[in-house]
């Protein structure tokens, strides 16, 4: 029952606010094909110049991490404080680094 033929498949919408900025997820739309997905995304998510470029991606193509993984999946980053610049001591008088 959960997938419907009547509304077309679901597409995820990403908007780029200004040239050079990253594309940010803003929601989703139903549409039967790519062109319709793009037009629906424009009508639903950019009525007030929220963006100058859009991506639409079939929702089923998105691969996501699962919430249960939050511990183990991201764990490798936890004990590596040497990846941050504040880990290192730089002497006074050598200028900005």
């Amino acid at each position, binding site marked *: 029952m959960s997938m419907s033929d009547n509304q*077309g498949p679901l597409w995820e919408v990403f908007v780029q606010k200004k040239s050079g900025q990253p594309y940010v997820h803003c929601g989703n739309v139903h549409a*039967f094909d790519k062109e*319709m997905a793009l037009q629906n995304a424009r009508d639903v998510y950019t009525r007030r110049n929220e963006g100058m470029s859009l991506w639409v991606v079939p929702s089923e193509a998105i691969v996501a991490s699962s919430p249960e993984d939050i511990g183990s999946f991201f764990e490798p980053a936890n004990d590596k404080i040497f990846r941050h610049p504040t880990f290192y001591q730089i002497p006074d008088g050598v200028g900005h680094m």
Partner: protein
Amino acid sequence: MSTIDFEAIFEAKLANNEFIEPKDWMPENYRKHLIRQVSQHAHSEIVGMLPEGNWISRAPSLRAKLVLLAKVQDEGGHGLYLYTAAESLGVSRDEMLEALHTGKAKYSSIFNYPTLTWADIGAIGWLVDGAAIMNQVMLQRSSYGPYSRAMVRICKEESFHQRQGYEIMTRMAFGTPDQKEMAQDALNRWWYPSLMMFGPPDAESPNSENALKWRIKRESNDHLRQRFVDQTVVQAEYLNISIPDKNLKWNESKKGYDFSPPNWEEFKNVVKGNGICNKERLEARNKAHNEGAWVREAAAAYAKKQNQLSTAA
């Protein structure tokens, strides 16, 4: 991991003011509560297009028509944000529409009142959108992520709705004697239905307890209603029109106005389907849906054919 652990994680997230996301474990009743609330919120946006749509072709100027068209289009967009938020809980768009069209699902009862004059369009923007904003500002901090994010978008767009309504009210209230009378008449008819928008009194609100416990809602119906009255009185005073309530009086001890409750029997009756426009609204939604069936069929057939062509090539 046992179910109890999942529940503890869920409770801890709520306690820390974190958001619940679609793939997170959630109690079945939380999911059900949200599906009901978010889908009915979506239906309210869509049905809410009808009373105002009634005046698009009769707007008094080109400017007024452009503004009203943009507002009604926004309401359609708001409905779409909310439908997709509800879909993330595992209900399909078709199921929700079916529930609306058969009368199984409810929508805000305010939209079962008719729009008789142009001043009603002003009163709707000022009062109905004003009340909706008050509710939706609170819902921006709702515990369900997709609902909260939809509310943030909606609130950004909604403030133009209230302002355009108040602008219409000022034009009418400071216009000819006939226009002023229309403004007063619109306030008389929309005041109590607007107070009803916040839902039944806290003591008699069947869904409030869970909604507050789960942080789906953050403030009670009566609390929001009080704030709405306190905010609106000065706006009516500026327009020099009277709120139709002889008991309306400033209460210094609570730093707010005392006011008469709406007629809750009337509210129940409209929710049951016996309001002035319930039948008309449902018929209009069904007609639009059925007359649009060929468009959905044609689009599906076209997409299928394009797919076949691209796989053949």
